[in-house]
């Protein structure tokens, strides 16, 4: 079980961190949530009944929500994205347009409702299937999938304002 948990952490550390950060909105508290989750998992050390990846993501998600119960999400939360790198494009217009598009999509993701943002992070940045997402959130798969679609529609609408 230890090796299993270790391999899940190694393969999904970035996705776990993105999920915890998207929930807590604070990088330090996101790391604390992951630490707390693995502490619980090791204390329990039982073989997961279902998908081990969904099992670990559920633990990190619950620990992140516990962080929110102790202290609410900050009003100016940390983004899950790095700062935009300098773009070197042949045309300054293209560079400006791409930078603006990136800024819009990032801002749109950060401003999504919590559940939708969580769905996008789990699906895109953690590589979870809808089945794993449903298991991690303990919700029906159809609910998770439709939430993800709605999130993409919102993001698309935000980026299309640039056009």
């Amino acid at each position, binding site marked *: 079980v230890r090796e299993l948990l270790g391999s899940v952490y190694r393969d999904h*550390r970035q996705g776990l*961190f993105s999920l915890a950060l998207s929930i807590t909105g604070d990088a330090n508290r996101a*790391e604390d949530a992951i*630490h707390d989750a693995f502490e619980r998992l090791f204390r329990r050390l039982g073989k997961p009944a279902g998908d081990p990846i969904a099992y670990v993501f559920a633990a990190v998600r619950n620990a992140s929500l516990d962080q929110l119960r102790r202290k609410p999400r900050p009003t100016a939360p940390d983004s899950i994205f*790095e700062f935009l790198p300098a773009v070197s494009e042949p045309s300054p217009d293209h560079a400006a347009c791409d930078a603006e598009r990136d800024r819009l999509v990032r801002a749109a993701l950060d401003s999504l409702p919590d559940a939708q943002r969580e769905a996008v992070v789990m699906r*895109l*940045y953690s590589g979870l299937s809808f089945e794993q997402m449903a298991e991690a959130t303990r919700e029906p798969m159809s609910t998770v999938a439709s939430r993800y679609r709605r999130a993409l529609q919102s993001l*698309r609408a935000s*980026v299309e304002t640039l*056009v």
Partner: protein
Amino acid sequence: MSPELKDADIETLLLHQPRREPCRALDDRVAAFFNSAAPQQAPAPFGAPPPPSPLRFKNFVYAAAALAACVVMTFSLMSIRNTLDTAITPIHVADAAHSVTSVAMANPIRVDEVYSQDEAGDVVLTSDNQPVVPVRRQVMHTTRWLDPATNVRMEVTRPVEQIVVLPAEID
């Protein structure tokens, strides 16, 4: 940019955004769980059967050693009958002894234990009417290795049985 975006375009766009990475300290914090000793087990619920004790294994080893000793003794007594006709060389046998030695090595720690027990049999007469007593000596050599870093333990038990014949004094 195309005026009609599809979901796949948004997904691609999002995937191209570099994400913030966790710091290395998080890896160290999580790795501490992997490198730590086994966690404490929760107490067994009331009425549950007790966990297997290491004493069970030890008793099993002793039982196996005793069985092996009986077989060896049987063959030894058979050979004694044949050798009693020849000259007997008395051998001094010490009393029952118990010694424990501990040698701390770099890694792992090694512990050697030796248990011995002597048991005298009935007095018998040799062909030249010399009273002798067969004495059975059972020795148990146990070596344990313990790695304190990983808490790995290993134990090897080696039973040895000897039959010696001593001259007896009859009042």
